[in-house]
């Protein structure tokens, strides 16, 4: 099981075991990761599950849909090059030990 390292807005790190195939957002909710609200529960409609990933793993995660791309510009914290909606990312070995930062709103 991959380990995800959530880097919280206050600087603390929360490492959790994640189940492959679940989304990063689901993993965050199941582990009560602060800052992931996910109002729309994975529909990419609310932009409240914004995370920032290291840029070098972006390509391993596949392309961003037009819809997610639009939403990311309107998340509360400003968009960064590694920004994604965590509900649109499936946990896989590519994310093992990767730092997933929750940007400060």
């Amino acid at each position, binding site marked *: 099981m991959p380990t995800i390292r959530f880097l919280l807005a206050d600087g603390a790190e929360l490492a959790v075991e994640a189940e492959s195939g679940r989304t990063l957002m689901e993993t965050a909710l199941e582990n009560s990761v602060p800052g992931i609200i996910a*109002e729309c*529960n994975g*529909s990419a409609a*609310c*932009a*409240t599950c914004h995370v920032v990933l290291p840029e070098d793993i972006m390509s391993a995660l596949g392309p961003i849909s037009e*819809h997610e791309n639009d939403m990311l510009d309107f998340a509360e914290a400003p968009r960064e090059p590694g920004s994604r909606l965590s509900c649109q990312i499936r946990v896989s070995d590519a994310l093992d030990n990767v730092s997933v930062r929750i940007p400060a709103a």
Partner: protein
Amino acid sequence: MSEAVKVVDDVAFEDLLANPYPVFKRVRDLGPVVKVEAANIMMVTRFDDIMAIERDPETFSSVNPQSLLNTVIGPNLMRKDGDDHARERAAIDPSLRPGVVKRCWADPMRVICDDVIAQIEHKGEAELFEDLAAPIAARALADILGFDGVDWRTMALWSQSLIDGSGNYSHNPEIARKAKKAASGVESAVDRMLPHHRDIPNPSMLSSMLQADPPQTVEQIYANIKVAIGGGLNETRDSILTLILGLLQNPDQLARIRAEPLLWGQAFEEAVRWISPIGMYPRRLTRDVEISGMLVRKGEQVGLCVGAANHDDRRFSDPEKFDVFREKKSHLAFGAGSHFCAGTWVSRALVSQIVVPTVFERLRNLRLKDPDRVRIRGWVFRGPTHMPVIWDV
């Protein structure tokens, strides 16, 4: 052994319409699920319970073929789940995404807002429901749907008639007749508009539905355009009025926001938390399940009272108070889960970035004409219904 669901039988329907919040508070404190006889529904009123329910659509389904909503407007995305819902939602989202709102709709919405204000500006007084909020909400919606040339009063009549018909539990024949007339009016308008949108693809909702993969059928278009009319006009209108009302009653907050315009967004979120335009929507249980220890049986319907959840004092301190500067927390005014309001981003832009800031800028020293004459009404749908104001000319 699970506790029996408590019943509230001493509340009149009129009490709910006049002010549901005292009832909501009583029900919230009584238990996680409470049957309210006057509304003939089991209410779920606590924030955390509703959030948990909306994360479990397989148990708490939106599917309800027998619902009045389906009868009045046809099978539509609000009463579907899973892939059926997702496909229909994806067919309208390209018109409603925040970036599309900014690029395609903000300018026409500004034109509408300026035009409506120009018609009242010189008068020094107005009734904001009829003279401002309703025409702006209706005209903006007509643009976004692709209903060119449909006048705002027709849009408003359709919206009200469809909403009334969907809540016509007493089977009043006059309400049913009006709803049917509105439905056929919308269908004729769709028929008239479709060739244009087929020929010239554009960002409107009608065009998005035709461009979707697979393109939506005419039946899907009829039904979901009716949902958009019933769900996109009154709520926007009500939130315009609620935000103006909250700020007129709290001039100190208004002054801070005007000094720091980035706060308009926050002010809007507080307004829809304070008086949520949609107060309740139903879900049907697909299995026996406990809601915070209270057993509810398969097949039963529960009313998720988001208006009540937005006043849950377990989450919000002094919930009855309009306070733009309260501790920041998410609310449920747009619902939650996959049915999260599709028009959220349109309403945020229209109400908090365009209409309300412009109203306070153009109508100098705006104030309530008579605070006692402001009327607020409704519980499933709630908002100011009468708001006379004056300003300096």
